């Protein structure tokens, strides 16, 4: 018991680190944006897309001729919310950083956002000009927070308190107060510009394309069990750190093996002896992603099951639909899973456990290998069912694994509750202290 108290103490102290406070508040601030964006994304890519899960199983193409219009309509909403989350994070985290140092600088958020966009906005390419939009998506969330934090620190060091909220001041004074902050503005933009320059040089010489090609070539070769596990670890750890870019790569990985498997299964009308029964896509997408990276669905159920924090439960309830369709963003943001040491163990290790157990089931021919294609946004628990051509055994085992995962998550949710209680207690004590 004393030992666990120590853990709670350590976790509370970690939560009070200044950067951690910033990132967690940024997440909670942006939770509504992420939630709306996730819902729009589900509608656009899962529901109204003929390649999406609901679009496929409901054969939307055949009875809803306007599906493309609807798909783009909601797709736009998802782009301006989730698709721009990184610069928004820069905005919020910069504002929070100066507030943390008890300053108020109105222009700070916009400057941070401009710095972020400047850093990654490029029209330079040796052949043709295109602007990559992927740097702005929620996958780059943590980078946005860091940029905002750094810009905030620059302003804290060199900036001055200004106020435009006071409408009694003359316009002259407002202008003057803006000029006093010219140094940090220029400094922040200069740093962003230098980064922009380095990156532009890399693009000019085609360095990033070469790296991209090398990575693609590496992952297009043959996989083995170790790389499969390593990739799963990479994906979960990076997502936990707030950087989810790696997952979008892994969908395309080892394509040739997937094709060989499918080809074999279709010609032999059985998937029992396919050449590559343990491809990363099969194991990781089939059993390591119930509700998205880090088995978010298991976490969600565990929160609804045991958490006595009304806020946590509300977040879980509102994110239930996106999480069911494998979009874990609202839950990881609203329940502060990213960079939260409480959840790092289950978030990273439980998917591995699932994959190991599942590969055992496949090895002993209890369930057949996962070879058939699944539409985008197929709920994680149903991926095994779909990819085995409707094997109910596969679904049953997925549910068993899900139950194990929920049980494993429960102690961590309870621990999170205790940390919250302690923090709330301290806050109350602090307020009481302040009043006296």
């Amino acid at each position: 018991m004393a030992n666990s108290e120590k853990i709670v103490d350590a976790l509370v102290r970690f939560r009070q680190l200044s950067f951690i406070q910033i990132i967690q508040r940024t997440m909670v601030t942006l939770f509504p944006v992420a939630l709306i964006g996730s819902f729009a994304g589900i509608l656009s890519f899962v529901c109204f897309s003929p390649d999406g899960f609901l679009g496929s199983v409901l054969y939307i193409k055949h009875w809803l001729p306007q599906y493309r219009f609807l798909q783009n309509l909601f797709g736009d909403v998802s782009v301006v919310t989730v698709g721009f989350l990184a610069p928004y994070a820069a905005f919020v985290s910069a504002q929070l950083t100066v507030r943390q140092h008890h300053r108020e600088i109105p222009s700070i958020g916009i400057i941070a956002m401009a710095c972020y966009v400047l850093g990654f906005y490029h029209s330079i390419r040796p052949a043709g000009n295109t602007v990559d939009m992927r740097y702005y998506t929620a996958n780059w969330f943590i980078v946005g927070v860091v940029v905002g934090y750094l810009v905030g620190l620059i302003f804290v060091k060199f900036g001055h308190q200004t106020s435009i909220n006071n409408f009694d001041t003359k316009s002259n004074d407002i202008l003057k107060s803006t000029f006093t902050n010219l140094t940090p503005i220029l400094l922040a933009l200069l740093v962003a510009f230098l980064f922009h320059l380095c990156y532009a040089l890399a693009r000019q010489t085609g360095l990033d394309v070469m790296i991209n090609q090398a990575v693609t070539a590496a992952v297009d070769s043959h996989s083995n069990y170790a790389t499969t596990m390593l990739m799963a670890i990479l994906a979960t750890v990076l997502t936990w750190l707030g950087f989810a870019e790696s997952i979008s790569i892994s969908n395309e990985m080892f394509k040739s093996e997937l094709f060989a498997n499918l080809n074999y299964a279709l010609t032999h009308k059985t998937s029992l002896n396919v050449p590559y029964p343990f491809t990363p896509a099969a194991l990781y997408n089939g059993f390591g992603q119930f509700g998205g990276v880090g088995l978010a669905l298991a976490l969600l159920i565990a929160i609804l099951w045991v958490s006595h924090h009304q806020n946590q439960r509300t977040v879980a309830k509102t994110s239930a639909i996106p999480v069911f369709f494998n979009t874990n963003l609202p839950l990881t943001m609203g329940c502060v899973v990213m960079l939260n040491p409480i959840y790092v163990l289950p978030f990273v290790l439980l998917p591995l456990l699932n994959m190991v157990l599942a590969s055992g089931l496949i090895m002993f021919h209890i369930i057949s290998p996962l070879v058939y294609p699944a539409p985008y946004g197929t709920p994680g628990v149903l991926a095994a069912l779909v990819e085995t051509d409707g094997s109910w055994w596969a679904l049953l085992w997925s549910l068993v694994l899900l139950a194990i995962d929920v049980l494993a998550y429960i102690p961590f949710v309870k621990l999170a509750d205790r940390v919250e209680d302690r923090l709330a207690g301290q806050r109350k004590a602090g307020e009481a202290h302040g009043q006296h």
Partner: protein
Amino acid sequence: MDNTRRRRWWVLICLFLAIGICAALAGRWTNRNVDQMETRQRSPMSPVIMIPGSSASVNRFDTLVKKLNALDHQDHSLLKVKVYNSGRIVYTGKIRPRDREPFIVVGFENNHDGYSNIKLQAKMFSRAFNQLKSRYAFNNFKGIGHSNGGLIYTYYLEHYFNERQIKITRLLTIASPFNFAEPINRKTEMLRDFEKNRDKLPKNMIVYSIAGSENYVEDGLVPVSSVEAGKYIYQGVVKSYTQVTVTGKLAQHSALPQNKQVILLIQRHVLKHRQPQQNRGMPTTGNNNKLSR
């Protein structure tokens, strides 16, 4: 405490309801989908899909098909597909049952020249192709494009063709001006685009490009050098790329589809090549892996 129990019941009910409904739908979908894919995998049909050039109609290849049928006595059927600007797709003719190698001509209401039109036509072709593939369960096909038809094919293959199960085995372009009428030291925007996206071309495709020549330089309309610019797009990316120049009688641009040599080349190199037998029981070989692009 009662509250907690009620809440837990709700969680379980909602979860199992959601999983149950989705699982029923997903199970039905995947069964149908796998059935469809298996049918396609077994299908022996391997059509030749042809695109005429600018200002030409879906009847462009009538003579060619007639002559080919006279040559190999296979009684290939001829299906004509016309795509209107409104998106309407009209079929004339039909495919004889058990015809393994029918000809399908895809023509467009908008049959004008120019890069912007080629882009539009490639998009329309993609629409027609998607309809064709759901109507006929073929798993591989051959492409022939006359003049701008070859350009439409190139644009289509680079931008729209992304099939898991359907493979294009051969592509034959006849007098396709990959650099329009420009000399080769002045590359058009189109040729530069084609080169930029050449990595997206199917790797296992065999490509033939036929040029016609009336006077060492051009076929009366298209410079030979412009046809030969196809090498900048295909050479080294696809499985093989062969350039053939046809001269003599009927080597004029519009006469090329009726040219004897061209017809022989089509018969020899596009038709009747061994059907990629659906490797029944045999391991796949590199060139027979119809699922890789």
